[in-house]
């Protein structure tokens, strides 16, 4: 095919040497046509980034090396090029952008200089022409006021701006192929939508091909033409977008879809993939997914599956599509499917839909909570300004209910959580827990109440002391609060708790680093449960986890709530998790709650323009269902100097003169549904 730009054949890359070498990429073959967006989808550790780095020949030296295969760019084998000629390809014919815009730019050079460097190397421009080209590129990636921005330093730009600058640098060499390695993972959802839109537009304008590496099915649905699913270093399925989303063939792909939380799945536990990704140091005698596959039979463990074409341009690496083998499979494919579904349903009895009633009294009632951090400077550290991190938040959590607090990074969600737990003392407002005013408690009295409310953190790697055994970690709360005085009884209780979160007893005497991210998060949940809390604040507990692991944690949280009647304050930016788990939702913007109500009402009919924009920005799985992206102007304002009137007014597409004058008061727009916006004047 003449229009194939990049062709990878049987690419193999290893990290390390000898028998312990990790086969990070193990026989990947794919083709990318000119002007096409190819999405490489997979969970962490499946080898998708390694594939991208292999194309660029940028594997981490000296451990990583390419051990086989070919990478043909327009028929030229990149693996055979000299390093000098490869340098011209990198950044020239192939551009690359990385996940973390914060660390990809040099903080001591202006962004203009950094773009100019790339232009100079690959286009050889000098002087005025160079400056002109830099401004053109900044314009192209949608940075307003390019002349001024070119002279600024990276720290003066927001995360979204930095990612745009990274894209401008990658575009400087006018590449034919742009490799984007998780380009939006570190960004907020509204900014993610903008960056994806930008990539789509640039591809249309320049005709370059795009290799998009992501773990997010939603991003794939919105952007890709073709999709390749990777698992354990291999491509397991490849198809055009529409057939892939309509009918994924590989059991792994199907499970991935099933484990995405949605509103529709609320009534039952999410499908999970049992076990974990196999060690890539081993040689496989069968299918790599067999151990975790609900539909595996003997052949899967004995023979390595071959690549099967199931339709035009749709291939799968699975024995289910091998006509010769499938005859030997126990039962037809359909019945196996049903059995698998029955499995998950039996594993945890489904709570009835909407099983959590409105609940009697509110367990937690927060009123006008404010946390202001002083900004000190000068000789005597006088307070020069204040950061209005949380500025008047009111919410209530009923017994056995889940309230989701949603907002973009920096809006003050985590500060609310810490202020409720009295880890940060609030500046003003009241936090009543079960009728007791927590802000008034001090010392011993507060310590005694602490057993009732606990927290689960976002980063399972930072939330456990690496120098303590799991048993000691889980036990710490019980010991500190003097709940179970007897050591042996405490040990028994810890084992019980670990069993409750699905971990076995030997885990007790091991160290946190021996566990995977999902297992660590289970340990953190067990630690919180150890003191029999009634409220657990979950601060983005799944955002550092893969989607299949996220499903396990969400199922666990839901099951625990049904059994123990726990209440959750669930802090997240992931709206699909909210739709699956929460009863109520509160949307936060710059230290204040702008909309609050039952999940079904708010998600179905958002009233506040910010909520609307947030929902519109979330990429959906329904392929082709392109909702119009509501583009928000500019970046979230700084909480040091909030804009006058409504905080959202500078970015709001529907701002009115009154919005600049005063902050709107709350208006009830439905049962329990309240919004603070001038569009809905008091009823």
């Amino acid at each position, binding site marked *: 095919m003449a229009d194939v730009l990049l062709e990878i054949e049987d690419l193999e890359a290893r990290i390390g040497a000898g028998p312990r070498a990790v086969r990070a990429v193990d026989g990947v073959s794919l083709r990318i046509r000119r002007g096409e967006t190819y999405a490489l989808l997979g969970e962490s550790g499946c080898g998708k980034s390694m594939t991208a780095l292999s194309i660029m020949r940028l594997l981490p030296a000296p451990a990583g090396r390419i051990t086989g295969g070919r990478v043909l760019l327009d028929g030229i084998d990149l693996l055979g090029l000299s390093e000098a000629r490869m340098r011209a390809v990198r950044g020239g014919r192939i551009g690359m952008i990385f996940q973390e815009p914060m660390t990809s730019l040099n903080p001591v050079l202006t962004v203009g200089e950094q773009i100019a460097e790339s232009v100079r190397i690959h286009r050889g421009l000098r002087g005025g022409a160079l400056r002109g080209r830099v401004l053109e590129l900044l314009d192209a990636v949608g940075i307003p006021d390019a002349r001024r921005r070119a002279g600024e330093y990276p720290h003066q730009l927001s995360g979204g701006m930095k990612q745009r600058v990274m894209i401008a640098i990658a575009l400087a060499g006018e590449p034919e192929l742009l490799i984007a390695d998780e380009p939006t993972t570190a960004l907020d959802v509204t900014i993610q939508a903008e960056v994806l839109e930008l990539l789509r537009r640039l591809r249309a304008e320049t005709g370059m091909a795009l290799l998009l590496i992501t773990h997010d099915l939603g991003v794939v649905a919105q952007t890709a033409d073709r999709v390749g699913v990777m698992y354990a270093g291999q491509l397991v399925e490849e198809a055009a977008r529409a057939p892939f989303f309509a009918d994924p063939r590989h059991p792994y792909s199907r499970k991935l879809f099933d484990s995405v939380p949605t509103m529709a799945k609320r009534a039952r536990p999410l499908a999970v993939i049992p076990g974990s990704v196999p060690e890539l140091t081993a040689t496989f005698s069968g299918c790599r997914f067999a151990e975790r596959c609900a539909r595996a039979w003997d052949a899967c463990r004995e023979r390595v599956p071959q690549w099967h074409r199931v339709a035009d341009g749709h291939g799968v690496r699975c024995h289910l599509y091998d006509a010769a083998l499938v005859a030997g499979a126990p039962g037809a494919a359909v019945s196996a499917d049903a059995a698998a579904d029955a499995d998950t349903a039996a594993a945890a009895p489904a709570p009835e839909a909407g099983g959590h009633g409105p609940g009697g009294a509110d367990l937690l009632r927060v009123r006008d909570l404010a946390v202001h951090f002083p900004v000190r400077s000068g000789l005597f550290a006088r307070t020069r300004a204040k950061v209005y991190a949380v500025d008047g938040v009111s919410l209530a959590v009923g017994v056995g209910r889940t309230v989701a607090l949603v907002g973009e990074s920096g809006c003050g969600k985590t500060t609310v959580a810490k202020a409720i737990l009295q880890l940060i003392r609030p500046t003003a407002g009241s936090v009543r827990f079960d009728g007791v005013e927590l802000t008034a408690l001090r010392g011993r009295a507060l310590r005694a109440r602490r057993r009732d409310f*606990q927290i689960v953190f976002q980063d399972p790697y930072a939330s*456990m002391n690496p120098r303590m055994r799991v048993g000691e970690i889980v036990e710490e709360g019980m010991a500190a609060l003097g709940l179970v005085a007897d050591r042996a009884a405490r040990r028994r209780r810890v084992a019980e708790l670990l069993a409750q979160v699905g971990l076995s007893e030997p885990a007790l005497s091991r160290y946190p680093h021996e566990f995977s991210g999902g297992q660590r998060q289970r340990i953190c949940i067990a630690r919180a449960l150890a003191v029999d809390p009634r409220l657990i604040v979950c601060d983005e507990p799944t955002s550092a986890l893969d989607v299949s692991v996220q499903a396990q944690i969400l199922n666990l949280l839901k099951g625990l709530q049904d059994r123990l009647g726990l209440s959750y304050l669930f802090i997240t930016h992931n709206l699909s998790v909210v739709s699956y788990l929460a009863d109520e939702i509160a949307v936060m913007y710059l230290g204040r709650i702008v909309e609050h109500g039952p999940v079904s009402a708010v998600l179905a009919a958002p009233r506040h323009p910010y909520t609307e924009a947030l929902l519109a920005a979330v990429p959906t799985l329904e392929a082709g269902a392109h909702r119009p992206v509501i583009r928000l102007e500019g970046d979230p304002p700084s909480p040091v100097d909030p804009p006058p009137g409504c905080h959202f007014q500078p970015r709001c597409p529907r701002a009115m003169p009154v919005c600049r004058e005063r902050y709107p008061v709350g208006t009830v727009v439905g049962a329990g549904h309240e919004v603070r916006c001038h569009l809905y004047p008091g009823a």
Partner: protein
Amino acid sequence: MVKPVFLWTDTLLYVLVAAVAVLVWYVRRHEHLRAPWREVFRNRMGVAAMVVLAAYVTVGLLDSVHFRLPLESSAAGGERYSGQVLSVLDLLLTPLRTHQEETYSAPLATRLYSKETVRLPDGRDVRIYPRLRFGGAQLRDPARDRLPDIERTILRGVGFALLVWGALAAVVILVLARRHRWAPRAALQRVLAGRTDYPVHVALYTAGALILFASVTGHLAVHYHVFGTDKVGQDVFYETLKSIRTGLVIGTLTTLVMLPLAIVLGITAGYFRSWVDDVIQYIYTTLNSIPGVLLIVGAILMLEVYMANHPGDFQTVIARADLRLLFLCIILGITSWTGLCRLLRGEALKLRELDYVQAAQAFGVGHTKILARHILPNVMHIVLITVVLDFSGLVLAEAVLTYVGVGVDPTTYSWGNMINGARLELARDPVVWWSLAAAFLFMFGLVLSANLFADAVRDAFDPRAGGGRRGG
């Protein structure tokens, strides 16, 4: 019987050795602490440095067991003891200690380094280089016999070293063979090829080099002054061996003084912040802005005045010198804790924001417990790296301070004193170079091996260096 003498620094050294022993026992029981140490023991350079350090430490510890010998003429009532305090090392080195010449003599010489007027038996006075009392005294014609005799002695030394080393290697290999159930022959092959868990061959080769050095100098030292003699005829080899203890004491006891200050103040400042942090920061900024030498001079002068006014407090000269050594350690510790304190404050500032500390706070765990359980264990790698890195700096600091005149007591054997003396020796003609050379050689050996060991420790413990395998 001998009368044991417990000098202050001896006692503290024993305490330190006991503390290290407890630490080793503790580390062996905790896998996450053992792992980085294993890394240290796998580092070839680290193992070689450790063997050399072990030799120094052995000499230092032998020199830290002090006692007074009974006087033989103690007939009248009760036992009486000599006023001279000796150590085990002194006893082992008795020939070196007692072979006192008139004045300077060059290494392995048989005659003095300067001419003296000697009255011959026939009554004439001549100015010649007189024979030494001990160096080469057994030779009849030094001019003819000296070199062959030295060669023979060296050969004997080499032979003896080979024997000892062979025995040591055999024992090590047999022990390894037993532990791993290898055939002795296979064990030998594995060790030679370096195919053991730890670089045993490196340790054996280093030990071999040390044994060779010790054996050759030991054989020579019986009849010669290997590194010559100093102005008063004292054997320089003896002096430099005695100096090892001073170097070790300064390097280790100073950290003993510095650590509690640095750790307690550093992590409390970082953890509590607010006014606690302000106070502690002011303390160390103030202390840091006073030149360290000035403080040391002040303290030593005060001590000298005290000792001059209370001569009765000290039974022996060595007790006086020891007190001054201890004081030097204390004052060096007080002036050097600020660097580590600053590092620990920064680390504690970072750790206090970590989720596991917040989780502990959410459980209502008390501050002291959080400091002890969550903060301290997670800064210990920094403490360890700093202590090992600082050691060599302190050994060098002693030499510099003593050279300036505010270091150890002039009667204490120390490399600083030797170098200080060498100032005049280098100014005379012909130059006396061997004191300086011997002090330099031994100090260089100690500091170099300490630095190499520190590198190995840092590689294993510093998470940023990528050697330490730990999560979080």
